[in-house]
Every structure is written in structure tokens, then in C-alpha cells.
């Protein structure tokens, strides 16, 4: 692979500039947003000076703090349940062969395939019709559904990469199934679990459309609150909150990425 670099046979006009353009396209808006969040000027069009004020304004906004707390409650509950379900499903799907396995995979991947707006509509109708009051609980349920495939995929990948002989070796060395799981499978699976849980967590923190539909009054999460703010108008405070959201997500993805690559 290294050989390709610098080999004129592999140089095509326009490829490198397009790539440069794409990376600029991907990151320019993010940098602009972060830069503006430090802009002193309320109008946000001209740069007048550096300030942290908008962050303190945002962090002192009690409605926003409440929304952030809701987001954390939802994300941790949904992550916990989704990760647990994903671990169990992944163990079964990678360690056993049975008919209809493809169908099971398709069901687990369903939340990834169905457009979010459709899921949102269906979930809302379901809750209203069976008579569950919209609130934090409904948001947690909807998020758990959505988070399962995100937790499942890294865990399954880790299990598939694991040598099945290791578990056989443990049972060969007198470990019963439970001890094999606890001493061999779980420690080796841990990075996959952590990585899956973190992805589920960010997804839950970020999911807007579904939340917007199924969050009743009092269950406003951070994205729903930000949406409301954006609709009212562009303010430096929105910039600061958005920049914070970006930083949280980026931190989590980076962590998840690093943990996922851990070899142990």
C-alpha cells in the first residue's frame, strides 16, 4: 500500500484538490461556529473581541440546564439498556449458527434503515394510542430502540474478531461456561462494549427528530431546546451552546475510537 504514494501511475488530476475541498467543507462550518461562540459582538457578523461571556450566559440559563439534565438522564438510561441488550444479542449472533439469522440481523438494523421521521411518527402514534403519557419515559424507550444497533455493531465486530479457540481453551482448562464468560470473553470484549456504549450515548445525546415527537412537556432535551432557540433567532448564546454540544460529541467519539482500537 505504501508503494502507491508518489507513484506517478496513481496520480490523477483533481483528486487531491477535491479531497482538500471536502475536508475544508466538512470542518469549516464547525470551526466558524466555535470561533463565533467566542465573539464579543452580539450581532455575530463582525469580530470585535474574544470573550467567554456567552458560555457563562448559557451555563446560567436554568431552562437549558434542565434540558441538559434530561438529556443526560435519557442518554444514560437508554445507553445502559441498549448496551445490555446489544451484548446479549451479539453473543448469540456470533457464537451460534441458526436459520433466520439474517432476519434477526435485519430486525436489529431496522432503526438504521427506517427514516427517522417515520420512526418518530410511528412511535408517537404508538404511545398515544396505547395511552402512555409522553414524558421522559417515552423518550428513554424511543432512544433505547434507536441506540441498540449503534451499540450492537462494535460489540459484534469485536466478538467476530475474537478467536473462538480462546473460549474453547478455557473450557478445556476446566472453566465452566459462566467462568469462561467472566474470565475470558468479558475482559476481551470490554473495549467493544465501551466503544458501543459510548456511541450509543452520543447518538442518544444527538437524536433530535424522534425526541421532538415523543417528548411531552417537561421532557425537553438539549437538542429540542436548542432547536427552539434557533427558531427564535441567532444569538451568541446559541453559538456557545452549540459549540459545547460539538465538543462533547467530539470528545466522546475520540474516546470511543481510541478504546475501540485497544488491543489488550
Amino acid at each position: 500500500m505504501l508503494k502507491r504514494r508518489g507513484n506517478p501511475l496513481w496520480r490523477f488530476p483533481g483528486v487531491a484538490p477535491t479531497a482538500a475541498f471536502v475536508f475544508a467543507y466538512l470542518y469549516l462550518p464547525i470551526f466558524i461556529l466555535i470561533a463565533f461562540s467566542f465573539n464579543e459582538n452580539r450581532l455575530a457578523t463582525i469580530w470585535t473581541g474574544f470573550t467567554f461571556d456567552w458560555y457563562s450566559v448559557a451555563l446560567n440559563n436554568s431552562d437549558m440546564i434542565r434540558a441538559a439534565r434530561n438529556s443526560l438522564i435519557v442518554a444514560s438510561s437508554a445507553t445502559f439498556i441498549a448496551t445490555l441488550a446489544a451484548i446479549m444479542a451479539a453473543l448469540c449472533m456470533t457464537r451460534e449458527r441458526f436459520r433466520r439469522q439474517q432476519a434477526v440481523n435485519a430486525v436489529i438494523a431496522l432503526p438504521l434503515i427506517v427514516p427517522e421521521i417515520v420512526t418518530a411518527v410511528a412511535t408517537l402514534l404508538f404511545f398515544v394510542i396505547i395511552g402512555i403519557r409522553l414524558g421522559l419515559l417515552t423518550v428513554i424507550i424511543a432512544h433505547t430502540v434507536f441506540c441498540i444497533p449503534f451499540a450492537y455493531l462494535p460489540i459484534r465486530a469485536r466478538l467476530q474478531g475474537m478467536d473462538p479457540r480462546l473460549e474453547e481453551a478455557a473450557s478445556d482448562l476446566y472453566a465452566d461456561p459462566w467462568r469462561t464468560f467472566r474470565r475470558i470473553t468479558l475482559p476481551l470484549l470490554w473495549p467493544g462494549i465501551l466503544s458501543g456504549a459510548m456511541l450509543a450515548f452520543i447518538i442518544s445525546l444527538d437524536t433530535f427528530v424522534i425526541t421532538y415527537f415523543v417528548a411531552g412537556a417537561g421532557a425537553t432535551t438539549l437538542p429540542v431546546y436548542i432547536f427552539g432557540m434557533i427558531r427564535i433567532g441567532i444569538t451568541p448564546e446559541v453559538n456557545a451552546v452549540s459549540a459545547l454540544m460539538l465538543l462533547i460529541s467530539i470528545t466522546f467519539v475520540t474516546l470511543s475510537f481510541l478504546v475501540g482500537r485497544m488491543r489488550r
Partner: protein
Amino acid sequence: MQATSGAAIETQRLTKIFDGPGGEVRALDGVDLIIRENEFFTLLGPSGCGKTTLLRLVAGFEQPTSGELLLEGQPMAHRPPHRRPVNTVFQSYALFPHMSVAENVAFGLEMQRTPRQDIKARVERMLSLVKLSGMGERRPAQLSGGQQQRVALARALANQPKVLLLDEPLSALDLKLRKDMQIELKRLQNETGITFVFVTHDQEEALTMSDRIAVMNEGQVLQVGSPTEIYEHPTSRFVADFIGETNLLSARLSRRDGSRAIFDLDGGGELQGQDDGGHQEGAAVTLAVRPERAELQRDGPGLPARVEQLVYFGTDTHYRLRLGNDPTPFVVRRQNRSGAGGGFAEGEEVRLHIAPDAVRVLQD
């Protein structure tokens, strides 16, 4: 069925059928086998012959479709692996990557709830047995392939199993290391007195190390015997062909002459062999002759042949001969001894002399 005394492992009509995508696959087809205590027993065969499946059934990783498996007389067929007194050395070693070498070796003892003090002593003894003293704190990833191999051995032997199962354990090592480990394994077997069941597709490895060999093909055991028996007296075409090089000749039993049998070769000519009494006069048979057991002479008695090609191998030379109108060449191996002289040239007309005791009559 009755268990045989003195047998470490006994299989009775052991059969394993896998459901493959293309239908059922008979990995093991009614295998009857007795492995004696304290012997170095090898399962030899090409890939897909069922040898690894047999080993995995003994270890308990797979359940037999039918038949019984006895370990020291105890039926085992449906006992889970963690309750069988056997241990396995895996082809890929399967060392636990998140544990140190010492923790790996201690794992089995810990699972059997051996007292901590004893574990420590045993681990040290095992590491010194495989010449890895002082390496206990390292991680498997920090060891060379040969060292990992030794850890895998120590980990299995630490439990003093009745039977040690080895699944092509040397296949990942380079040639030099493999030769060393062959001797090492033999030494360990002698020192521990444990029954070794060794799986390999390498016939040379099997011949050098084993007390007895079972040659397998297509889920069946074709022949069981000592290395000499297997090499010198193959009973089937497959065994003769798989173990070492063999010239196979189609012939017809023409007549008997005392203890001798005279065969008419299909390609023309006559050959004398020992009479095994198993065939009617006039019956079609296959004869096997090892390349080193045939001799070439310039003239005199023997079958007329022509040297088609000679291939130089350093220690010896292989002559590929055309024999009558037989389309397959007949190979003769001659050692290149100094001063022996008398080499033959390509195109030369020669006489092929085969002693009666070098001719094997195959069963099929």
C-alpha cells in the same frame, strides 16, 4: 459395549455429521479406535480427513452424532469439555492475550481450585520443564512463536491430564524450530508419561515422533500401526501413496510358486512378490514398490526400462523410468555415494531389479 482395558481412549462407531451449506458432511464415519495408555499416538491424514474433528470430539468441543467415546473406560460423548480429564494444545496456541504467561499456565489449576501455594510451585515447575523459567510475567504477545508454543504446552501439561491433545501444534513454526520441537515433544512425553494424541498432515513428522499412527481419509481410519508397519506394509493404495513416495503398478496374479506369487504387470513383464494368500489366481491387484527399494543395473535379470529423466536431490538422485507401455513413470531413488559411480544417463536402456520382499500387494 465393553470397554477395553489398558486403553486411554476408545471410540466405538464414532460418527460426526455437520450440516453444511451444500448438505450433510460426514466428517467422521463410524470410527473404531483404541489409543493405549502412555503412547504417542498420531492421527495422520490430508486436510478434511476428519482428524481434527476426532480430536475436537475427544476434547468435547463437538458432540458426536452417534457412537460412543470412552476415556479410561468412562463414557464421555456428552460430557462438556470442562469436565473431561484431557487438555489441548491448539494449532493457534489460543493463549489468553490479557493474561501473563504465568496466569495462562495457572488458569487450569485455578479453575480446579488448587490451593494457591501449589499453583505457584506447579507453574514454576512447568515453566522450567518447557525452558521458560523467568518469563512468567511476560504477555503472550511479547514472546516468539516457539516460546508461545512452549507456554501452550506448559498450560496444558500443568493440569497433569490423562491425555494431551495436540492439534497440528508445530505447523506455524519454521522448519528449524519445528525439528527442535519434535525432539522436545518426544522428550516431554517420555518425562511425563502422559498419553499424547497428535494431529498432523505431515507424514515425516508422524513417522519420526509416533509410537503408533492412524492414517485417516474421508472420515475413516484406514490403517493403524507403528511407523514401520505403516511405511513398510501399507494395506491400501491411499496409505501407500500418502506416506512417502510409492510406485503403484497394476497387475494380475498369474500363479503361485511356493511362498512366492508371480504377477503379470499390465504394462508388460513379470514381477515376483511374497504371497499374502489373499487373492485368487487371475485377480487384478495393485502392487506398491518404494523408490529406494528398487535397483538399477546396466544388464542382467530384471525388467527392461528406459531412463526418461533424472532429478538431482543432493543426497540422492531420482530416476524416472518408462516401464514397458505403462504410462506412469516408475521412480527409483539412488544414493549419491562417493566413489559409487555408475550413474545412468537420460535415454539409457537399463534393467530394473525389484526383490520379492520389496513388493507389497495392496488390499484395494
